[in-house]
């Protein structure tokens, strides 16, 4: 009888906690949308910010966010998957591996502001680049690499052992077995990890403030040569991202509609991050179906 009551109480508590979580999520997202959505317009998404009058947009910031994200993923995914392959397939159980693992642990638990300050020291000051999009992407890579390595390693490890043995027993080399059996089967997990990483990178502010900078240099959206100084694609220019912009506008914005801009940008950010999460889910499910069905 007692056990039964305890069981009921426990169930009730858990349901309550679950409801609370859902409520917080829905409330938060709902509030941000309610505050921000009315300010999102085509004009808002594409025009540059204003200096002192109302009606400015977030066009360059949005572009910078996407560009920083792109560069970050370009660096993070290959290195992260490579690290995952190494840890899952090649690293034995020696002291070096254990050291590497704890290094990754530590790196993954660093607050992003610390990564940002490290980036300031290395990618801004030591290299003499100043605030650059590339520096921001490198800092974000450091910040995201542990997650990418870990999800890749787990995805590879979760491929059933008998799949790997089947391939090796056919006289297929270890490396070819990795590329043609393990990676395809691990792909859904790796993609999920990559997209979650992307979401984290897109919303990150602290690691970027002191690396990619808090101002967007003047860019000319008609010049797409990455080597010309005014090009939006030039990685060596400073580039304030959306998340950094939200922080800046709401803490020291001079424009009269600073709160509206922050609200609109926040709503946009939340939407993008949610889309990343949903995308991760659908893409990995779709890939899984594709990988496990006919291929030719």
């Amino acid at each position, binding site marked *: 009888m007692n056990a039964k009551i305890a069981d009921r109480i426990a169930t009730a508590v858990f349901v309550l906690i679950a409801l609370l979580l859902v409520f917080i999520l829905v409330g938060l997202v709902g509030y941000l949308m309610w505050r921000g959505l009315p300010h999102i317009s085509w004009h808002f998404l594409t025009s540059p910010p204003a200096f002192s009058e109302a009606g400015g947009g977030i066009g360059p910031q949005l572009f910078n966010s996407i560009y920083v994200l792109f560069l970050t993923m370009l660096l993070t995914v290959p290195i992260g998957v490579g690290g995952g392959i190494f840890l899952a397939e090649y690293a034995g159980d020696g002291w070096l591996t254990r050291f590497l693992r704890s290094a990754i642990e530590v790196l993954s638990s660093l607050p992003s502001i610390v990564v940002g300050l490290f980036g300031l020291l290395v990618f801004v000051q030591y290299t003499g680049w100043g605030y650059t999009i590339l520096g921001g992407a490198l800092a974000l890579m450091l910040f995201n690499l542990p997650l990418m390595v870990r999800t890749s390693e787990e995805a590879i490890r979760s491929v059933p052992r008998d799949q790997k043995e089947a391939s090796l027993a056919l006289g297929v080399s270890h490396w070819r077995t990795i590329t*043609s059996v393990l990676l395809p089967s691990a792909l859904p997990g790796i993609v999920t990890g990559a997209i979650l990483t992307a979401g984290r990178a897109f919303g990150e502010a602290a690691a970027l403030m002191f690396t990619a900078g808090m101002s967007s240099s003047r860019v000319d959206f008609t010049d797409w040569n990455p080597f010309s100084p005014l090009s939006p694609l030039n990685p060596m220019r400073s580039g304030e991202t959306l998340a950094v912009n939200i922080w800046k506008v709401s803490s020291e914005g001079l424009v009269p509609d600073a709160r509206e801009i922050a609200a609109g940008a926040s709503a946009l950010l939340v939407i993008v991050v949610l889309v990343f999460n949903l995308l991760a889910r659908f893409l990995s499910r779709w890939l899984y179906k594709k990988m496990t069905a*006919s291929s*030719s």
Partner: protein
Amino acid sequence: MAELKEARDAARYHIAPEGKTVLNVRRLNLFYGKKQALFGVDLDVYKGEVLALIGPSGCGKSTFLRTLNRLNDLIDGVRIEGEVLWHGENIYGEGQDLIEIRKRIGMVFQRPNPFPLSIYDNIAYGPRIHGIKDRKRLDEIVERSLTQAALWDEVKDRLHASALGLSGGQQQRLVIARVLAVEPEIVLMDEPTSALDPISTSRIEELIGMLKKRYTIVIVTHNMQQAARISDRTAFFLNGYLIEVAPTPVLFQTPQKKETEDYITGRFG
């Protein structure tokens, strides 16, 4: 030791008087870390025979089988002493081509393990990686291998459907076809029917009977009736030792060792 040699001589006499061996295992010790799993195993495998390995659970049958295509190399901390001669050359010797060894000494596992690909791509997987790109040749290989594995008629209309949609027994024959596609000489099987129903099991047993015309087969089985039905010779393992090997009828009717007799009369194991 003397008796072991006697049994081996008897086997030689019964199977192939001019006996061509394809594998000679010599004084094989295997250690998992500090734990020894195989103790001084001496065993020959004859060309074209079906050799069954029996013994109670944990006696080292799988371990032994996996030394024959060096699949134990994968496991951390495994140490191997002694020799496995394949046509006279030690596969653990220096400069051996692991790829060639594993291609020519194929393996079928306990649980059917097709890749999550189409039937066609499962069979073509090995040949493709070993460099065959020509579509027509691949088609031929796929058809030949599936035919040899007695699966062609059942799947010829759905070669591009997922292999995971096949029944367990069909999957196991698919896996056998996948091994045959890389043209092995020896096929190792580790309890290939223990996950299957009786009908699928007897189909696999029939298949083994047909395959032995072209291939040498070493098969681990838990099932003594199965060993008696399909094998030419049987080797009995216990606690990591090879106790006795003899032509199957001889081993089951007049075992030389007390341990063998106890095992086959069901006194333990």
